[in-house]
């Protein structure tokens, strides 16, 4: 009998220890050094079971699964059902489901869809997310507000820059000191990196902006000249002589300086295949390379200014944001979702995870100086230039896709006159702008006085 009791006691203690250890490990991943508070020990939904539908893009599935599981470990009554969608069609599916009154409880959001989706969203609960606390913890708080409502919070700052192949860089006899300081130096470096075969055809391009880079390059160079994407009214796209100059400079890189060719594959593919030594693309590309071409060692620098003097702005920034909430959720669901989102936003480790996955600089202030971030060539560089990047707001995708259509396809491939392309492009973007209430936030840029608004 004693033995049995002893056994039971031991068993009880063991299970007790396991339970404690389980709860401990669930808390282990949680680190909060910010102002926004989250209580790990409270009960949610009165302990009743609830399953939340959560739609994410395929790339983020792993990251969100991990933190949903961690939340479930804290609150075993709350479960998540994560459904993945392909990149392109995730938002198409949401665009159908949300207005029809169905769809998930919460979903991965992109700020370029805010104008389209807003009527179908419920803002974060201001009682759970006091704005002052958020402002203390995060940058990009006010940029994420619409009519005072918070539909998401920016978690990672995305920008663009030049990626170069370190091996090729060294083979061309270049060193760290050769990182270009001016546009001309960039062209010179590109020339040194270009390789030709015996017929004079390019085998390795010094610089490649094919298909998905040129449109972003143009607007970045345009910033260097102090011209914003949108005019004084915040809605009319600017196509002026400066714009023309940027396009001409880029065209000359291919036609005069022969550092690249439109016959090469798309910029990012060519770079990952080792047929281009440099390309210009979003910071996300850093992570993409690690997955798709781990053998290529790359370096990164921000586009140099025109003449070596500080530019009014070096590039555009954008944010990757936290999940948004379906307007159709019940009050009980709304409470749990807010609790979950608070768990995420107050958790340094989640924000870091998310930012590293998207490959942008975390917006949580305590993380900007994080050694992992600073040591990373791409994220560290972006962080250093942060105050010289312009956030134009959640402008519609059609802006850059139309620029691509006219200035890469029509000008570069078909030889259309640049002025003609500018006129047609402007008309088409203006036509598309009718569908959105977007107003540019470029005038809120801290150094907006250095820009010229037309």
């Amino acid at each position, binding site marked *: 009998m004693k033995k049995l009791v002893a056994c039971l006691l031991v068993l009880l203690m063991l299970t007790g220890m396991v339970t404690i250890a389980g709860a401990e490990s669930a808390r282990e991943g949680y680190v909060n050094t910010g102002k926004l508070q989250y209580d790990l020990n409270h009960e949610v939904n009165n302990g009743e079971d609830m399953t939340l539908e959560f739609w994410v893009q395929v790339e983020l599935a792993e990251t969100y699964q991990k933190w949903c599981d961690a939340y479930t470990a804290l609150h075993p009554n709350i479960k998540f059902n994560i459904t993945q969608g392909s990149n392109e069609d995730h938002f198409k599916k949401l*665009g159908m489901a949300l207005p029809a009154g169905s769809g998930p409880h919460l979903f991965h959001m992109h700020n370029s869809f805010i104008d389209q989706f807003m009527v179908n969203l419920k803002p974060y609960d201001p009682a759970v997310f006091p704005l002052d606390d958020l402002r203390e913890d995060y940058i990009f708080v006010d940029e994420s507000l619409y009519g005072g409502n918070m539909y998401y919070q920016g978690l990672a700052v995305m920008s663009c820059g030049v990626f170069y192949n370190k091996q090729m860089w060294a083979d061309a006899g270049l060193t760290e000191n050769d990182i270009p300081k001016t546009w001309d130096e960039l062209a010179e470096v590109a020339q040194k990196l270009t390789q030709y075969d015996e017929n004079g055809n390019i085998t390795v391009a010094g610089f490649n902006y094919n298909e998905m880079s040129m449109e972003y390059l143009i607007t970045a160079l345009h910033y260097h000249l102090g011209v914003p994407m949108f005019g004084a009214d915040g809605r009319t796209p600017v196509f002026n002589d400066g714009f023309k100059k940027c396009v001409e400079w880029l065209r000359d890189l291919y036609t005069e300086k022969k550092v690249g060719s439109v016959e090469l594959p798309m910029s990012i593919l060519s770079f990952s295949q080792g047929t281009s030594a440099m390309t210009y693309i979003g910071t996300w590309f850093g992570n993409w390379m690690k997955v798709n071409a781990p053998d290529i060692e790359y370096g990164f620098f921000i586009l140099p200014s025109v003449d070596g003097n500080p530019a009014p702005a070096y590039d555009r920034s954008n944010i990757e944001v936290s999940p948004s909430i379906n307007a159709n959720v019940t009050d009980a669901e709304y409470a749990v979702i807010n609790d979950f989102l608070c768990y995420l936003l107050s958790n340094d480790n989640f924000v870091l995870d998310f930012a590293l996955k998207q490959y942008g600089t975390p917006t949580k202030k305590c993380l900007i100086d994080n050694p992992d971030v600073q040591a990373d060539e791409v994220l560290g560089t972006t962080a250093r230039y942060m105050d010289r990047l312009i956030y134009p707001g959640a402008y519609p995708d059609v802006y850059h896709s139309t620029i691509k259509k006219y200035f890469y396809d029509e000008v570069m491939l078909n030889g259309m006159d640049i002025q003609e392309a500018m006129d047609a492009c402007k008309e088409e973007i203006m036509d598309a702008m009718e569908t959105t209430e977007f107003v540019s936030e470029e005038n809120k840029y801290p150094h907006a006085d250095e820009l010229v608004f037309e």
Partner: protein
Amino acid sequence: MHQQPVVRGKSRRLSQSQRVMIGITVVALIVYYAVFFVFPIGYAFVGSFFNWMPTKRVFTPIGLENYRKILGQSTLGLAMRNTLVFTAVVTLGRTVLGLLIAALIHGLNHGKSLFRTIYFIPVVTSTVAVSMVWKWMYEPSNGPLNYYLGLFGVPSQRFLKDSAQALWCVMAMTVWKETGYAMVMYMAGMTGIPGTLYEAAEIDGCTRLKAFRYITLPLLKTTTEFVLLTSFVSYCQTFTQIDLMTGGGPGKASYTMVYYLYQEAFGNNRFGRASAIAFVLFAVILVFSVLQLRITRGKEAEKHA
């Protein structure tokens, strides 16, 4: 053209089971098509007179604005011209090549079914998969097609990245994929022509070419009409291969009508304008179909006269 109704004349009264069968058909088809076709199409038609942005829950009447806008844009003309060129070339290409291959295979003594199988395989594969494979083959710098052309001294081509070639490259892929369908039908048609006809022609001193022209072709008329008609309606709505291979580009060089309206709907969130494009296309298809029907019916009438 018209089948003689079996029951007419013999017993005007339908049997119990026939009535049940007709009843099921009428009710099922009307209900099904009303719900899943008439309602959505009617909705879209009404939507073509509205500023219709589903994700923003906007649905406000704007009269003929959508039609006025698209008719004022050069894209509509371009997309329509591309659609008609695509339809005409692929329909003709598939029909002529199908006939030619069928004639060649038909003349073989051995291996007929082997060749038939091979030429038909592309028909039964997914457009998505073959579009991806062809896109890679067309890649200018390291795709295989330029490499093989280079062996014959042909200079490097840009294919899908050249405005003058892009649409033709997609057409070539489509003809490649769909010729087998026409071929199989022509082969069957040829099998149905009695050999005695050719023997008689040979005795009359007819060359093979003449026999083909004056015996084979006329007897394959119904097959030809069927191929042309079915091709027309489906190629007018070409979308998948354009979307996957060129994305309508370069620029808008390979825009087709359905690609254009898809862009308006899902790219610009303007379902009203997309619907207007759809009904312009519908009108064109309808006009061509009625014309085709008139011509066929006219010939039938001539024959009976």
